[in-house]
Structures are given as C-alpha cells and as structure tokens.
C-alpha cells in the first residue's frame, strides 16, 4: 500500500497494513477488522473514531495480538521497529506488550486486579532487574505522582476499590507507564468518566505524551475528544477505515458520507429548533455485510456501483484519503468547522 499521509511524520513508528481479524462463530463469520491500514509517526497522536462494533477496539487488540477466541487475525502485517508483530513467537510478543506498546482501557476497574494494592500492581509492572525494593518503591511513588494522584505515598497502599473512577484511570496509566512504552494505546479511556474528570485525564495523556516522548493511538466514539487530542484521525465503519485525514481537514471538509453523517448527527449549532441530520437506518450486521460498500444501505449518495464493489481509498487532498466513489460530489459539504479554504492541511 502506498498511502500518502498528511503532515508526513518524520519517522514512522508503527505501520499497520491490511490488518484483518475475523471472528469465526458457529454459524457465522464476523468481519470485525477488515483490511485496516494506517501508520503512526513518532510523537503523534492518532485517533480512531467510530461507533460501537466498527472494529476500533479490535484493531488495537489485534495490534497487541490479544484477540480473544473465536477471533483470529487472518491477514495483514504490523510493522514495528523493523519487525512484523504478526510473525513473532508468543514469547517475543510478550516482550513487545507493555515494554514497547502499552494499553489502557475504558473501564479501569476491570483491568486492575481488585485484590492487589496499587503499589503491588505498579511494582509488578516495573522492569525489576537490578533494582532494590527501595528503588522500586521510590519509582512507584514517582509514577503515581506523575499521573497526578495526590498523597501518592499513602494512596499507593490502597486498593482499586478505594479509588474513584478518575483515580483508577490514573493508576492504570501509571502501571502502563512503568514499562516506559513507546506507544500508548488508549481504548475509550474517558468514556466512563464525568466531563471534568475526562478533561483532566485527556490533558494528562497529552502532557505525558509530550514529556515522555510517546506516541498515542486513541480510540474513541467522541468527535470532541478527537478534536481536542489528535493530530490525525481515521474514521471506521464496519471494520474498515473509510476516511483518514489530519484532524483539521476532517473537521472542515469531510469527504466520506459516513463522516458527514456522523457530524450531522452531532448537535453543534447554536439554534434551538434546528433539526439534526442523523444517518438513517441501523448499524450494519457484521455477519452479513452487503456486497460492495458496507455503508451503501444507509448512504444518501449511494448508486448502483456502490452496491456492486467496495470502493478503495482514494486521495482527495494531500494526506486525506476517503473510500467512496462519490468524493467529488461531496466537496460542497462543510464539516463542523468553517474552514473551507484550507484543504488538506499543510
């Protein structure tokens, strides 16, 4: 694949090519991730946005090869540091998880161990070779302070249930940072949190990314979170990336009908009484996707060709890809922000 990306990153850290993960159920096959291609640059925050069942979380799980059965990665490659992650042995993969690529989840309570103290869980994740207990303890305190947990020394002794939702997510981040990963993958990290706490956690992730020189892949359903956090963004629908662009271009000139529909569904105008423009119909059934474009049944622009063959990604502006036959017809659509003159980003 020769995808040209906007603001081409100085150095590519991770390249995902044609990643395909299917779930083989008794009587059906769920095409959860269906040929996903993207890359992540050093120091970049890459967003993956989509609705439930679009395959965004499973893309992250596939990258770490944590797909639960009956799911199976059946195609593609994931290049990281000159290695193909999909070709590594399970033992080699264990060295990648945590140390190179760390991950945080939506509900930290289910990711944390309820019977171990926060201290035990952080110290367990530290690379312990040659470290004394005192050194490890000091490092654990340092990490907990780094993620903004007040009275870190005392709270280190506590258990997950004594932490609030926001504090748990901080603790989860501290545990993940203990291994100093180069890539932090965050799967809906703030969805379960209140808006003021979400704000804190997002700013924390952005700050840590800069200060520790990490790169971030952020999965979310919230375009507001994307707008605030991401350099580039991919929109997923039914297991495929349907559009990818730098964030500003996506918000000012979306070129895929699904992206346009998502934006039309969001109340962002000021006027009360204006109608939202929702996407008609329902999310697709991943076990029986239609021939051709998966979005065609819900798409107001769909034509005969859309129902016959799936469109491939075309470049509509430098670094801005959309998988739609009708991108030319969509030029007139403005996104959420008025920014029509600056196509594609610089």
């Amino acid at each position: 694949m020769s995808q040209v990306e906007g603001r081409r990153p100085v150095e590519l850290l991770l390249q995902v090519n044609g990643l395909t993960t299917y779930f083989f159920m008794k009587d059906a096959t769920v095409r959860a991730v269906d040929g996903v291609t993207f890359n992540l640059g050093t120091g970049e925050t890459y967003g993956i946005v989509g609705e439930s069942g679009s395959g965004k979380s499973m893309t992250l799980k596939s990258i770490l090869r944590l797909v639960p059965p009956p799911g199976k990665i059946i195609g593609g490659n994931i290049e990281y540091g000159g290695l193909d992650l999909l070709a590594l042995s399970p033992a080699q993969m264990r060295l990648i998880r945590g140390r190179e690529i760390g991950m945080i989840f939506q509900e930290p309570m289910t990711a944390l161990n309820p019977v171990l103290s926060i201290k035990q869980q952080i110290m367990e994740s530290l690379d312990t070779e040659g470290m004394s207990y005192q050194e490890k303890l000091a490092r654990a305190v340092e990490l907990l302070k780094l993620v903004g947990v007040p009275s870190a020394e005392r709270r280190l002794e506590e258990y997950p249930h004594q932490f609030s939702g926001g504090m748990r997510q901080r603790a989860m981040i501290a545990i993940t940072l203990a291994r100093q990963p180069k890539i932090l993958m965050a799967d809906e990290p703030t969805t379960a949190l209140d808006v003021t706490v979400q704000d804190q956690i997002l700013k924390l992730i952005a700050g840590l990314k800069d200060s520790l020189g990490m790169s971030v892949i952020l999965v979310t359903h919230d375009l507001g979170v994307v707008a605030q956090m991401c350099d580039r963004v991919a929109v997923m629908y039914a297991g495929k990336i349907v559009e990818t662009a730098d964030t500003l271009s996506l918000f000012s000139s979306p070129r895929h009908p699904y992206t346009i529909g998502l934006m039309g569904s969001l109340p962002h105008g000021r006027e009360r009484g204006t109608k939202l423009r929702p996407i008609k119909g329902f999310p697709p059934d991943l076990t029986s996707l239609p021939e051709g474009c998966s979005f065609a049944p819900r798409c107001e622009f769909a034509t005969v060709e859309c129902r016959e063959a799936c469109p491939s990604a075309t470049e509509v502006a430098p670094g801005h890809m959309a998988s739609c036959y009708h991108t030319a017809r969509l030029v007139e659509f403005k996104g959420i922000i008025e920014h029509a003159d600056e196509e594609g980003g610089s």
Partner: protein
Amino acid sequence: MNSEPEDGSLLRVEGLKKAFPLKQPVIDVLLRKPALAVKAVDGVSLSMRRGETLGLVGESGCGKSTLARCILRLEEPDAGKVTFEGQDITRMNKRELRQQRKKMQIIFQDPYSSLNPRMSIREMLEEVLTVHRICPPAQVASRLAELLEMVGMSPDTMDRFPGEFSGGQRQRLGIARALAVDPEFIIADEPVSSLDVSIQAQIINLLADLQRLLSLTVLFISHDLRIIRHITDCVAVMYLGTVVEMAQTGALFDRPYHPYTTVLLAAAPALDPRARRKEYAIEGEPPSPINLPRGCRFHPRCVMATAKCREEEPSMRQVEPGRMVSCHFSNKVS
C-alpha cells in the same frame, strides 16, 4: 423560570430533599454516633411552564436522577413539595397517585433493562392502556398502531419482543410506552446516553418533534451539554444535590455566571481542533455527598472562594430576569 410567583407554572418543586441513609456498623450504633446519609437531593426548588423543555445537567452523583424520581414519587422525598397543576403530589394517596401518573411519565436511560423481555410490544402497550383505562377496548388496536407510528416504528412489529430490537428501536418503544397514557409531562432521564451517535440524533429529533406535536412539558436530564444546548429552553445546573444556576439555555451557554457552570462548559471537549486548551478546567473530583463541605458546597474547588464562601451557604437569588444563581459573587462572575 421560578422567579415570579406566577401560577402559570405546570410543575413546581419546592425545597425538595432526599437522603439515603447508610448502613451503620453495629459499633457505631452502640456508640450512638450520628447516622450517616448520602444527601442525594438537598433542597432543590424549580418550576416549569407548560410546554417548556427544562434541561437538568450535572455530573454523576449530583442528584439529577434522584430528583426526577422524587418528582414522580418513584422515590419518596424526605422534605419539600412537588405541585403539578396546583396539586401537591407529595401528599397524594396511592389511588390519586395512579391517576396522576397518567399525566406524568418517564423515559429511562437504558432501553435494555426498562422493557420487560417476556412481553411482546402489543402486550406491553395494551397493559398500559387497560390499567389506566385510556381508551375503550374496541379502540385499543388502532391506538397501538397510532402510538407505534408516532415513534417511527412499523405497526407490523407489534407482536415481537424487546430482544428482537436494537437499542435505538427499544428507546422508541420506551417513548411509545410513556406516551401511551397521553401525558402532559415527561421526564427523559439520559434517554440517548447508551446509544451510538448516529442513533442518538434520530431519537433526539423524534423527541423534539413529539414535544412540539403533543405540546409536552419535558424535563430532560443529560450529562451531554451539546444535547442540552440543542433541545432545551432552560437549563438547571446541579452540583452535589443542589441547583447552582438556572437560566435560559442560550444565555447560560453564552455567559455562565456560577463558577461551576463555567467549569462544566469549559471541560466539555469542543468540536473544533483549533480551540485546544492545555490546562484543564478544574482540579480534583466532587467531594462525597455524605460529608458535604461547610458553606458553599463548591468552595473547596472554586477559584473565587473567600472566607465568606467557607462559612455561609449562598442562597439562590435572581441576578437578572430569568436567571437564578446561588453564589456570593454571582455579580462578579462572567
């Protein structure tokens, strides 16, 4: 708003309180320690005009849902009064309350747990119509079809069960059930929070249409400020069991007065990548509703707090027509 004591208001809530006592350890009982309680709603007053949509916003645990449940007496309030068309709901007996429920209905957040999985749509709606004797038996069938059409569902689906529907369709059915009794007043408690964005928009449009079509008075509870801004006429902002600010929706979003409202608006992620902020809106998390801070309950987190705020709890006062704020410095905030 509830500024002038005009009786054009349909619903009036006065000094409503509801606390949930915590289970006390035996030792504490023997030591006669005072019992602790979660003060979920701690003195809320508001009023709604007929046909108005009032938004209730606030973070989880601020008492939004408890307030809603107290208004319908799904929860018995400890103190205060709820009047609907001049009648005191809090004093009604069971029979009167059942009559009253014809006028007041609720739509719940979770369309998966609020529909009985063993009842077909027909059974569910028929039950509502018969229990409340809404229409003569001969007209039930046509009323059912009418209800389903009203919420955008095909009457063919009548004999199916909730499990066969998607989240968005179930929420439509929840709305149909609430509308079956032809109510005047609806509480929508986070009606779209568990739905995907594209489906959310369908339901919001539906609610807005029905509100106009049926001249409903709606109390719309949500934590999503974008939706509140879109669908409501007025907004009440809650923090730790009290309403801290109430205003016309446009005015509130353009110019919040209460420091907490300011924080809440600033914390919501803007849909504009050019409007990024590095600093977060507020530190810390809301304190526990068991041990409320003295004075203004927002003072430990408020950038404007002074000695007065630590001592004296501000009362709700009108700072301009249609705007009530409970802050000692509501004049200085902008």
